[in-house]
């Protein structure tokens, strides 16, 4: 039983990354109707940002956690203003290809500088482990989970309890009607995109101390994250976060009990969800 709980907890830790990334994807999709394929690359840029910051300025993890997401969020707003905005009026596939292209460009630029192998990052805090009552767990990984849960809750509160949140939700669900009420939804598009990008970058910084930092880290992860958002319901913030943590647990327990299925379980689940509820578990069907 302890073993089960320990593994479930471990699943929540890897779910933390899925949730942060899926949350960003969900708000971006909700507001812009853009499936941001560059999200994995931004996660990777977050991790490389931490490495580069330590290499060039000697600034440690906490600075990276603050500065890297801000810098990348800013870059994200530029990206939205200069490129993505121009394509939103067209078929969604155009932005799909654009962001996919951006991801490839980012990967290859970094590969030119760093090569394909992993980069060292030794500035992670909390090296010990902590007693959680029933079992011990690495302190750093508990911290990652805490950060992720806090952020997801904060975003949820922001969306449900503030005026900005109301506008964003309204713009997500009925963009035309919201505009008809005289609300300028356009001015929220850029900040929301930047915010989603910042979350991905933050997840990347969090990954640096516990995962291999290399140019492939984002593209390996993003496929699972897309499955997560599809299962949770595209554009559904709550669904994406919940699916993120659930899939994390499912994979961890799958690894333990049914290793054969550990790689495919996510996609099997995605297939089943698409068959039964094509809009995802928490997504809403929209008139075509």
């Amino acid at each position, binding site marked *: 039983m302890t*073993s089960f709980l320990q593994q479930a907890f471990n699943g929540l830790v890897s779910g933390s990354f899925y949730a942060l990334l899926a949350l960003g994807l969900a708000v971006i999709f909700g507001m812009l109707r853009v499936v941001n394929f560059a999200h994995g690359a931004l996660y990777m840029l977050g991790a490389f940002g931490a490495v580069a910051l330590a290499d060039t300025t000697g600034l440690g993890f906490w600075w990276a956690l603050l500065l890297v997401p801000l810098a990348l969020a800013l870059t994200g707003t530029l990206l939205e203003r200069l490129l993505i905005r121009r394509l939103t009026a067209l078929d*969604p596939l155009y932005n799909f290809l654009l962001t996919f292209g951006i991801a490839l460009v980012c990967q290859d630029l970094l590969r030119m500088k760093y090569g394909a*192998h992993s980069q060292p990052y030794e500035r992670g805090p909390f090296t010990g482990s902590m007693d959680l009552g029933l079992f011990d767990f690495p302190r750093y990984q508990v911290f990652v989970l805490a950060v992720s849960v806090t952020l997801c809750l904060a975003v949820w509160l922001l969306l449900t309890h503030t005026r900005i949140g109301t506008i964003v939700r309204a713009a997500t669900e009925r963009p035309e009607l919201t505009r008809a009420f005289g609300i300028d939804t356009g001015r929220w598009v850029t900040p929301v995109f930047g915010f989603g990008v910042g979350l991905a970058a933050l997840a990347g910084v969090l990954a640096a101390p516990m995962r*291999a930092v290399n140019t492939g880290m984002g593209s390996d992860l993003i496929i699972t994250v897309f499955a997560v958002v599809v299962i949770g319901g*595209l*554009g559904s913030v709550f669904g994406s976060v919940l699916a993120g943590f659930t899939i994390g647990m499912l994979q961890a327990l799958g690894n333990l009990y049914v290793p054969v299925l550990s790689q495919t379980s996510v*996609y099997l689940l995605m297939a089943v969800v698409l068959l039964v509820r094509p809009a995802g578990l928490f997504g809403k069907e929209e008139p075509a």
Partner: protein
Amino acid sequence: MKHRLSTVVATAAAGALLAGCGGGGPSSGGGKISDDKIVLGVLTDLSGVYADIAGPNSVQAVQMAVDDFKKKYGDKAVTQNIEVIKADHQNKPEIANTQAREMYDRKQADALFDVPTSSAALAVQTVAGQAKKLYFNTGAATTELAGKTCNPYTYEWAYDTYMLAHGTGSAVTAQGGKNWYTIYPDYAFGQDMQKKFETAITGAGGTIVAKDPTPFPSDNYSTFLLKAPRLKPKPNVLGALQAGGDLANVVKQYEQFKLKDKGIELAIGLLFDSDIKAIGADKLAGTTFTTAWFWNVDPKAQAWADRFKERTGQRPTFVQAADYSAATHYLEAAQKAGSDKAADVSKELDGTKFSDFFAHNATIRAEDHRIVHDAYLAKVKDPAKASEPGDYTERVKTIPAAEAFDKPSPDCHLS
């Protein structure tokens, strides 16, 4: 809209998991020196996970062999036209298949080199057999190339899973690491490594307490690291058979879960300098592993590595060193035979014994085309003792050629 897009995303996610498919091409024959030129093709991973282990510097190594050969023979060379071409197989067998055909058939390659990733190497071996042209494998580790799937056109120059497993598995078990928990990536290389490690560990009197396949690639190994100390009996060695970025993930998380403090030592199946750099030499210092060669194993190796560094700015891996060695022997054999026809070159190579900067006490086995040579049981050097930033490896002992590799497989029949 939402509905349609979610299907698009799902399809794209599924599509990214799959890959394209291969095609065919015409076949061509050869004279004494076909088309009056010898073409050496380097089929490798030019930009992916193995681009540093093999990749662009493998192309450089083969080019360096060609340059040295031309300098040595001058006007007396079997032909003045020796060309090196390259292609990227992206570690995918179906792309490797198409590229190999393209190189042999359309670009008149007489021999291919390198080819990291076992599944891709197996695909190239098949194409070499159909094209009846040579293939010198230095990048892939599976023993099947000289076993079940062997053919007269393929040579295995550098290393294999048997060599890695028997060096490390036997040594660590003999040093007291009797109870093993092994985790292996769930694809051709990992499964092969697992089998070889099992044989080596049990052969040395150790036990496999448990073994688990891990997803490939994966960034979370916590499941297995949590499981390790709970196993009964408790293992005292964690055998990590992952490679590259996966290995870095395992070691980082092994550190966080403090398994060393819980009495579980780490043994690593395949370790390259780039991995040591990524993980940190201080973290890995003292870790035992087996290698086919390293750049400062002896003065002769170092002299070559210095020349290589002048050319590329980097220290060579054993795969790149093996590419140079194989290309040189290939060209020398073509010179002697006065032909670049596979059968003529093979006749010169088969059964030859040699020692060069890469392969010591080497024999090109005629039975299965495995090149057996000395291997090294090594450990990661304490960074304080390193002579330069890339000096990571310390020899523990030399494993003589006869012990380093398995006997010819009964499954392989070349003639």
